[in-house]
């Protein structure tokens, strides 16, 4: 067998400290030029990114954005009569108060929302084409946001009332827009622009959530009739495109309700959106219900809780917490999907954009109009997606 020798007498090599590379250089080497293939990728992506960036920036600075500044009011609130705009501002003020209070009370993800809305208000404030009185109101709202933020930090006891007012916010807003029941109501047929987008989105989100919850519970029910009714409803809605649901809303709801009842186009679109999103929310919530270990059910039952108590005090609090991020994802979809009401003839943000493009006065401004519309949607969706990701972390979903 061969002898294994260790060279013990040899002087050990003196290890020099590694050549110090500046941090930036090392980062570049590790992340961009670790191999020849990687370097090639970096150069190719840099070229593509540079090309797109250059042309985008060039477009932004050479495009004629006057179509937006001239029609800014139309895009935001549609044909809402100018003498009644104070109603919208009242509702907006209420939102600011609620937002400020929640910022102070919960901080965390709420702070992100509040700061983003604040940033949007500030950007609007400095836009050159905004009228003076609009600026004043925006400024007042910004001050109000900070004031209520401090009130919120000082009064931790009002959490429950604030939550209640949030829940009532949409009905209250519609009540305000209709003039408190005292003034002449503004017909929902002339609601338009971003206001209409927001109203349709929030009504369908708020109303579809309880329906979705009931459908999810129904789908897991032990009563076969209830169970199969829910299964058929959910699978039926999930199998067809939203646009057909909106067609059903526009054409069949008046037929189903008979002659006695008249409902406006906006209302029909809201019903369609709600029925549609309820099915998707139900599936999300069902996912949460299924994630609860059976031990929880058994523990509740062995404590002698009735079914209703078991659901409302043990199962649902855990299940709903687990599905909050998924539900926010669904809310983003609903918000994006509201743009489809433009196809059935409503003038939401996108529908208003379409009308502007069709106007011969603004010929050839399609890119500007639709990019602006897309940008508004993007800001809100991105914000919601960001909050959803944060919630996922703070709620510790998926970690036990």
């Amino acid at each position, binding site marked *: 067998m061969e002898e294994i020798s260790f060279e013990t007498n040899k002087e050990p090599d003196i290890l020099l400290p590694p050549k110090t590379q500046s941090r930036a250089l090392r980062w570049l080497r590790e992340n961009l030029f670790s191999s020849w293939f990687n370097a090639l990728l970096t150069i190719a992506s840099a070229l593509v990114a540079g090309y797109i960036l250059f042309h985008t920036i060039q477009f932004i600075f050479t495009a004629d954005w006057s179509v937006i500044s001239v029609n800014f009011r139309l895009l935001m609130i549609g044909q809402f009569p100018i003498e009644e705009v104070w109603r919208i501002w009242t509702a907006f003020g209420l939102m600011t108060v609620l937002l400020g209070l929640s910022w102070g009370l919960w901080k965390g993800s709420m702070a992100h929302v509040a700061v983003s809305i604040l940033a949007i208000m500030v950007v609007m404030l400095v836009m050159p084409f905004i009228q003076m009185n609009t600026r004043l109101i925006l400024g007042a709202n910004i001050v109000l946001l900070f004031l209520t933020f401090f009130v919120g930090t000082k009064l931790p006891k009002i959490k429950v009332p604030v939550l209640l007012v949030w829940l009532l916010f949409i009905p209250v807003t519609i009540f305000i827009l209709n003039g408190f029941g005292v003034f002449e109501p503004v017909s929902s047929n002339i609601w338009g622009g971003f206001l209409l987008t927001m109203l349709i989105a929030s009504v369908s989100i708020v109303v579809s959530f309880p329906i979705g919850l009931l459908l999810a519970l129904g789908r897991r029910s032990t009563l076969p009739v209830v169970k199969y009714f829910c299964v058929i409803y959910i699978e039926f809605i999930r199998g067809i495109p939203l646009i057909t649901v909106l067609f059903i809303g526009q054409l069949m709801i008046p037929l189903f309700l008979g002659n006695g009842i008249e409902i406006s186009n906006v209302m029909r679109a809201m019903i369609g959106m709600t029925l549609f999103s309820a099915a998707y929310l139900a599936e999300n919530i069902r996912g949460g219900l299924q994630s609860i270990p059976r031990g929880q059910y058994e523990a509740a039952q062995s404590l002698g809780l009735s079914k209703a108590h078991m659901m409302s005090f043990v199962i649902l609090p855990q299940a709903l917490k687990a599905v909050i991020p998924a539900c926010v994802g669904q809310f983003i979809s609903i918000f994006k999907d509201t743009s489809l009401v433009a196809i059935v003839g409503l003038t939401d943000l*996108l529908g208003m954009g379409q009308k502007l493009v069709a106007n011969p006065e603004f010929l050839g401004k399609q890119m500007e109009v639709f990019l602006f519309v897309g940008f508004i949607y993007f800001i809100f969706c991105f914000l919601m997606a960001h909050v959803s990701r944060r919630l996922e972390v703070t709620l510790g979903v998926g970690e036990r």
Partner: protein
Amino acid sequence: MKKAVTTPFWRDKRIVPILLQVLFSALVLIAGYYFITNAISGLQQIGIKLGFDFLKNTAGFTISESMIDFQPTDTYGKALLVGIINTLRIAFFGIILTSIIGLFVGIAKLSNNWLLSKLATVYIEIFRNTPLLVQIFIWFFAVFLPLPKIQEAVTLGPIYLSNRGIAIPWFETHSNTVFWIVTIVLGLILAYLLAKVLMKMEMESGKRRYPFMSAIGVFAAIIIFSIIFTGSGPITIHTPAVEGRGFVGGYTLSPGYSAILIGLVIYTSTYIAEIIRAGILGVPKGQIEAAKALGLKNSTTLRLVIFPQAIRIIIPPLTSQYLNLVKNSSLAVAVGFQDIVSVGGTVMNQTGRAVESIVIMIAFYLIFSLITSGLMNLFNRKVQLVER
């Protein structure tokens, strides 16, 4: 004496569920009865009887893009069939293209290269946080319609861009195509069998037999033989050219079709990219470490360890994205591409048969969803882990 304890029927565990179900069914039936009687009396007032007889009547409108011959003298039924075929055309090409782009973007997002992964992130964030309809409008109204007239079409290599549509090179079959298809299929079968046999020999003897190399060689030999034998390729490529006011040769995509296809492909690819990324990240780290410890090459690890496990995570959400793509193709109605919803809408306007037209649309989508999810479930069962 002790009184016999009787449970009142409203607390009896055997009776309550039945009562509840009867109550529920009664509510549903009453609501349904109310709606349907209203609908029927409403329809009677405008003098419409429900029924699908109208499908046999002459349509009288034109469909600009159709894969089968369609004349205004054809029936409504055939018009709807053309719509269905057009929807399937978007679905087919859309699913293929979006899978390819989604795969690349998903892998790019996982890349070690910082710039590439950031680019993929920006792509995903921008296109998934903007409504699909807005994107389709941008493509249609702001990109394809403002393109120059056909006489001044922009050329990108063999591709022509004009406001009449995009003309791309397209293949054409000729007399030798059948022969080519047969030889290619035969070649593939032969190569596969050879690879299998050599692989088995390699495993038994432990000596290198180069199964993949030999398979590729055999296939290449068959292709070369076919080229010599027929003296032509399997298909001829026709490049388009402008002649007068139209394109000659190649294949012309209308602005509406291009807008809906590109919009759908880009929007859906962002979701597919995220699904693929999640699938690859979902493979436990221990699996990759174990493969490395066994001394497998990177490519072998990817092929034999990561991919089979990732595909299990990927398939269910991928199926629902494919179905979403098909359902979203109904947005074609907004840019005037005549898919099933658009044709159905025209039929609805011309005949006043709203209920029947909507029923046909819904039935198509439901059947399509059922078939697709059935097929994907079958595939899913094949790749799913067999649990003991």
